């Protein structure tokens, strides 16, 4: 306390007036005048006093009297009634408070001016108010040209109703917005998925929303596709999809409690694939035993010496996403040569049409003749043919029998040495059409063979690309080595996909990875 300075002495006879806006200009020197500045900052000093005319009774002119507060001055007022001692006016000083008020007004004025200037000038305005970079497809000259072609306004106005308006227009549009500025309840309860005015702009170029379910509610484009998020438009998220699919209340009225479960994430609660849950089977009538072909000991090796593998029959198509259908000529005849004459393995039945086979069998002499001409046999062609036919007859009896055997034989009746050009350990008696196909008797000339069905797509709701899965072995997803029946659908269960497509697996597992929203439903074949 002893270190405390004493308070400086000052004239405490008068009040301090911090409520005034101006201080006398001479106050900084301690000579503040008695009058003081007025509220507008004008110095009130005129002279030392205000002389008063005093007329004594009987006088006509009177005398000017000095009215100085400290007592009359020596010289007295001038004859015209003004004080002899004028006081020079000072320059009143604004107080800090007044300065603060001025700064506040200045900031308000500057803000308004700046904003009006910027908002009144379209290029500046657009750059200024844009909340983020527009994605590449929607910026640039190409887009601008397209916008005009599609009857949209330019730049911001291409999407936004208020995009080309100045401040006045913006206010108008804002007032008309729905939900409105003060519609708090509507704002709180509104669904972002509701279509909006901007969607109409989207549709001008992106025609037709093409919802994946006609019964699905209309959803705003902006709900999944957010603009102003940078040069690359943000990818959709699971939240977008689970907005409906994760909400039983939304789904049930649509699906009437039949199918749709509530789905949030692939790894968590995506349902098992339908072919498994509904226990579907391949309706293909062609009998094929994958296990035998891939692992059977009797399966001969391919030309280069390799074992028969998936890739020999299943080749990717041009795009690479899916596999070409298996063709007999390319993939099966290599082993299944369709020869019926053990002595003449070169003579092979045509494949594909029952009439052709039947015609072939009925024209066997001709066929043998052609064969002879082809292979240039020494003996007389006719003799060759006769010999062959005799052999056939010996084996099969009649032509009808042969035909019957060809169509209906399902198994080997006698050992064969070779099937086709491939020599095996034992002789196989040729298997007929029925070995693989479903052959039915019919009232027509030739029996009926049910056309095999190669179902192109099982998981029709999802997209898949084999090209992206080249790091995965075929057997990891397609359990062919254990499949004996054609009816087996050799597709993986969901768990196989989840191995990689999950947070733990590390591969992208968003809904959009496999499912598309906009393309119409792919019909099952």
């Amino acid at each position, binding site marked *: 306390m002893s270190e405390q300075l004493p308070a400086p002495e000052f004239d405490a006879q008068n009040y301090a007036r911090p409520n005034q806006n101006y201080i006398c200009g001479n106050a900084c020197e301690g000579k503040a005048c008695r009058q003081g500045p007025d509220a507008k900052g004008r110095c009130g000093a005129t002279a030392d006093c205000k002389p008063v005319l005093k007329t004594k009774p009987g006088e006509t002119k009177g005398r000017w009297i000095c009215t100085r507060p400290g007592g009359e001055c020596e010289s007295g007022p001038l004859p015209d009634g003004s004080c002899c001692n004028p006081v020079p006016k000072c320059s009143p000083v604004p107080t800090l408070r007044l300065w603060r008020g001025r700064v506040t007004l200045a900031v308000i004025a500057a803000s308004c001016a700046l904003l009006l200037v910027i908002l009144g000038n379209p290029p500046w305005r657009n750059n200024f108010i844009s909340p*983020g970079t527009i994605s590449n497809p929607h910026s640039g000259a190409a887009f601008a040209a397209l916008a005009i072609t599609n009857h949209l306004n330019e730049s911001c106005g291409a999407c936004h109703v208020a995009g080309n308006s100045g401040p006045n227009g913006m206010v108008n549009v804002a007032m008309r917005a729905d939900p409105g500025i003060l519609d708090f309840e509507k704002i709180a309860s509104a669904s972002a998925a509701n279509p909006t005015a901007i969607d109409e702009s989207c549709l001008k170029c992106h025609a037709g929303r093409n919802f994946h379910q006609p019964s699905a509610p209309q959803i705003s484009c902006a709900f999944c596709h957010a603009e102003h998020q940078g040069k690359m438009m943000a990818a959709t998220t699971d939240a977008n999809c689970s907005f409906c699919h994760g909400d039983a209340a939304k789904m049930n009225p649509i699906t009437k409690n039949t199918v749709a479960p509530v789905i949030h994430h692939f790894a968590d609660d995506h349902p098992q694939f339908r072919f498994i849950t509904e226990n579907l089977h391949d309706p293909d009538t062609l009998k094929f035993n994958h296990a035998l072909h891939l692992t059977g000991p009797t399966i001969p090796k391919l030309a280069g010496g390799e074992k028969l593998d998936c890739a020999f029959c299943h080749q990717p198509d041009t795009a690479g996403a899916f596999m070409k259908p298996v063709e007999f000529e390319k993939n099966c005849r290599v082993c299944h040569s369709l020869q019926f004459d053990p002595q003449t393995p070169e003579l092979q039945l045509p494949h594909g049409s029952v009439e052709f086979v039947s015609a072939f069998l009925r024209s066997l002499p001709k066929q043998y003749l052609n064969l002879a001409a082809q292979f240039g046999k020494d003996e007389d062609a006719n003799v060759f043919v006769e010999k062959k036919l005799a052999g056939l007859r010996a084996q099969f009896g009649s032509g009808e029998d042969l035909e019957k055997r060809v169509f209906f034989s399902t198994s080997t009746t006698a050992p064969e040495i070779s099937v086709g050009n491939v020599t095996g350990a034992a002789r196989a008696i040729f298997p007929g059409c029925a070995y693989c196909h479903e052959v039915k008797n019919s009232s027509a000339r030739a029996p009926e063979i049910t056309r095999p069905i190669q179902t192109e797509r099982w998981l029709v709701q999802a997209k898949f690309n084999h090209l992206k899965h080249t790091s995965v072995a075929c057997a990891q997803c397609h359990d062919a080595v254990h499949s004996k029946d054609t009816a087996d659908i050799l597709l993986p269960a969901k768990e196989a996909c989840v191995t990689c497509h999950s947070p733990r697996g590390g591969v992208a597992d968003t809904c959009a990875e496999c499912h598309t929203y906009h393309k119409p439903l792919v019909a099952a074949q």
Partner: protein
Amino acid sequence: MKRFRRQFIFGLLALIAATVGALWLNAKYNALPNYAYLTGWALLAGMFVLTIYNVRKKLPFLPLGKSETWLQIHIYLGFFTTLLFLIHLNFRLPHGWFEAVLAWLFVLVSGSGFVGLFFSRVLPRRLATRGGEVIFEKIPALCHALKTEAETLALGSEAKSVVIAEFYTKRLAVFFSGPKNFWNHLAESRREVSGLLAELEDLRRFASEIEKEKISKLAALVRQKDGLDYHRALQLALRLWLFVHIPLTYGLLIFTALHIILVFGFSGGAR
């Protein structure tokens, strides 16, 4: 310090409760589609309540409640509104020019508020400890009087001391000419004045008896001037922070009004 401690504890508890509540609500309703609208309105409501404190201050003659209570609400609501601001921005920096300027305005307003709070609680105590209480508007006149006195003492016709006159002209004239050492005083540094006084003391070696007396008087004047400077510096700081806080508040409100128009004019709901 019972009453102020009680105020502080009550305010802090209310703030903590509000923060926890706000963060919980944020986590729960974050996914709501129009969440940003709702947080925006809450933020605006907070800003509005904060701003009308300025109105209350202009109406001291109306029985509107104690300014002390209003300030307590203002301070704690200020902290909470800053949290609302962060929630509204979803804890991310805005991208576009306009939104960036708007965010910066808010940061400056609330930042200056925090600085002001710090000043208001720290500087008065320093002023009281130092003593030498003086009304801010009287300081220039007192300063001037000290300068005249010092000049007369050192340079006046009766001074008759070359040593002192030279020292005054070289070192003290500047010191007495006006307010000095603003930043030094804010930082509580007495370096400058201690230096001056030490130099003054050094002069004693060369001084006669009369001159020694003059030096003591000059030293006393230097101390008085320093005390005045100290008061001016701290009291000025206590006034100047409001030059940022208040004008920018109104700028912020203007920008906010435009922000509301832009949001509703350019959002999907615009028709």
